[in-house]
């Protein structure tokens, strides 16, 4: 079997201001780790050839030349609102099967408004929200609220000040998002409860929920807002003073654990996610879980110290990094065989 690994690689030099901009792209270490996992396969998978294909504008030619049997897609794409859809769209055109979700699902999940509309339709809890394009449309918004860019993944664009408590702060943050990110701002009801991220592996009824990761907001520096922000990721978590912010498996009573798992399975299925996904969940003040967002192209940094949550959840379930990557590939192969 010939596997094409399609990726976007971080540029070698990134200034500190741009860390956030390339946050979703992968470093060479991650790309090599995934390539090795695919090459080695699991016991009895036989010899595999892996070709690395960067998702740039020469990708088409490389795909046609290499003719992979399947693509392992970890490319985040370049421009615009539906950027994660670009690579799967091209693979569909070339009739090359690939791991992960289709262009529509990737497009919906990158657009927080669309995601929340689909979830609400299916009565899956998600915080109340509104999208605004300027600082002038801010009547009737109840505070506190969180202000985020509508088309960004993970916690990109979310800073400690994204949690707003006054009209003035709200206006400032909406203007920051609209100006800096060139996109509408999503204003979301702030949930004060615990935060989790949930890794899902497989498809439909066979989707497996890996041990739940808690983002322990109490570990954040005193006085900071209880959110996993840019500062928490890149400023406060230093190698000499690491933030001990993740716990996996999360300490949960069995009832709540099942509730979170069921909610995630439902969200995974109504958004027609395939093979894998990482889902962010937060509890409201009554302890009820809500879906914050879905990441159908989760980050998979191989080094445990990097605190990448999907591999962390897998490790906690006794699944090695290589097994995890191959499990995604095998889900895709099984799914394609069924269709």
């Amino acid at each position, binding site marked *: 079997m010939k596997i094409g690994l399609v990726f976007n690689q971080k540029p070698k030099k990134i200034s500190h201001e741009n860390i956030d*901009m*390339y946050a979703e792209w992968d470093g060479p270490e991650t790309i090599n780790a995934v390539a090795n996992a695919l090459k080695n396969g699991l016991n009895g998978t036989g010899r595999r050839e892996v070709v690395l294909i960067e*998702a740039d*504008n020469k*990708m*088409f*030619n490389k795909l*046609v030349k290499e003719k992979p049997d399947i693509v392992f897609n970890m490319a985040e*794409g*370049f*421009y*615009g*609102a*539906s*950027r994660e*859809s*670009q*690579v799967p*769209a*091209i693979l*569909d*055109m*070339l009739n090359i099967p690939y791991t992960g979700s289709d*262009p*529509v699902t990737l*497009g*919906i999940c990158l*657009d927080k408004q*669309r995601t*929340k*509309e*689909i979830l*609400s*339709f*299916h009565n899956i809890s998600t915080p109340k929200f509104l999208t605004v394009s300027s600082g002038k449309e801010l009547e009737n918004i109840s505070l506190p609220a969180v202000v985020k860019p509508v088309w960004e993944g993970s916690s990109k664009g979310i800073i400690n000040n994204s949690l707003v408590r006054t009209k003035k702060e709200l206006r400032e943050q909406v203007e920051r998002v609209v100006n800096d*990110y*060139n*996109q*509408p701002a999503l204003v979301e009801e702030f949930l004060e409860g615990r935060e989790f991220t949930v890794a899902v592996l497989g498809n439909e009824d066979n989707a497996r929920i890996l041990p739940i990761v808690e983002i322990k907001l109490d570990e954040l520096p005193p006085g900071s807002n209880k959110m996993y922000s840019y500062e928490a990721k890149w400023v406060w978590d230093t190698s000499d003073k690491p933030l001990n912010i993740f716990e996996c498996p999360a300490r949960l009573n069995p009832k709540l654990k099942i509730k979170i798992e069921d909610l995630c399975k439902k969200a995974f299925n109504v958004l027609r996610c395939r093979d894998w996904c990482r889902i962010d969940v937060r509890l409201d003040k009554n302890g009820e879980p809500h879906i914050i967002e879905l990441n159908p192209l989760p980050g998979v940094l191989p080094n445990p110290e990097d605190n990448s949550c999907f591999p962390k959840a897998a490790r906690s379930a006794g699944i090695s990094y290589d097994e995890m990557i191959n499990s995604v590939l095998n889900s895709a192969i099984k799914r394609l065989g069924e269709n």
Partner: protein
Amino acid sequence: MGKKDKTNKLNIAVIYDYACTCEGSRENLTAYQDISKQIELINSVLSDMDYSVFPISIGSDVVCFLQTIRDGKVDLVFNLCESVFGESTKEMNIPAMLDLLNLPYTGSGALTLGLTLDKGMAKRILVSNKIKTPECRIFYKEIGKSDDSIIDGLKFPLIIKPLLEHGSLGISQKSVVTSGKQLVAQVNALISKHKQPAIVEEFIAGREIYVPIIGNKNEEVVLAMSEIDFTQMPKDNFQILSYIGKWETESAEYQETVPVCPIDLPRETYNEIKDIALKVFRLMDCRDYARIDIRLTEDNIPYVIDVNPNPCLDEDAGLAISAKVSGIEYPELINRIVHSAMGRANGNGYYKTKILT
């Protein structure tokens, strides 16, 4: 071809799908014939307006197609691809590829095309935003048994459509059913013929009104509305626009379902329809040109039944006729689409895509 010349003419690549010519088996052969006429027309209209125009078709070789676009020093792509290789499910792939090349293009983006092609997804978004659309259920597989639980509270008559098509494909008098038995037969026939899920919707027996909109978000122009005159139809027929009635000019159904523009509506209803259509256009992030389809109940309550970004731009198709009624001649319509797209590309008040490299 297409080298940026010294006169600083805007280079426009008109792209379209060539593939539907090859297989006669697909119903949408007619749609292809429309396209080839349209290409010629749009080419000549744009050339007359002093743009430097070159048509590019997607043949079987996608790489060659992309190479041609890339080497053509294209300033704008006029996207007339309603399908790729004759498959309408791949319509959204073209904007996705153009986004990857960072080339500006006319019409809606990938997600808008993908979401509106899937009538189920489009309806979920409408419902979440409290916009009325008929109740529906989706069937992914053929139905084995037949009892009332399969329609789960829907009220007959019901209309059955392919989940992933535009342009009345798969619609005939048989599409409207009044019993569980008919429903099962029609759902199964559709799934087996079209190899895709079937969407079953409550049928609204009333006027079917089309609302064409052009422009960019918040600068839209609502063109004259049109509707289908069903009065010539046999009395026991359901008042729908079938595939044959829409495309086969020689058929009786075609003669019996004539589009009318302009139309008469009570002022209040007109305003209500206009507001809903604009809301849908913005909500779905439609760009440059789109058509919102609405059915009116007997009590004049509008229900959105379809959202069509990038509708047919033929000279005698609905959009152009509505434009003409609104005082916009065909060349001006095409030019407005170009300007609307260029306005976005130049970032005049729109969200310009961020360049990461």
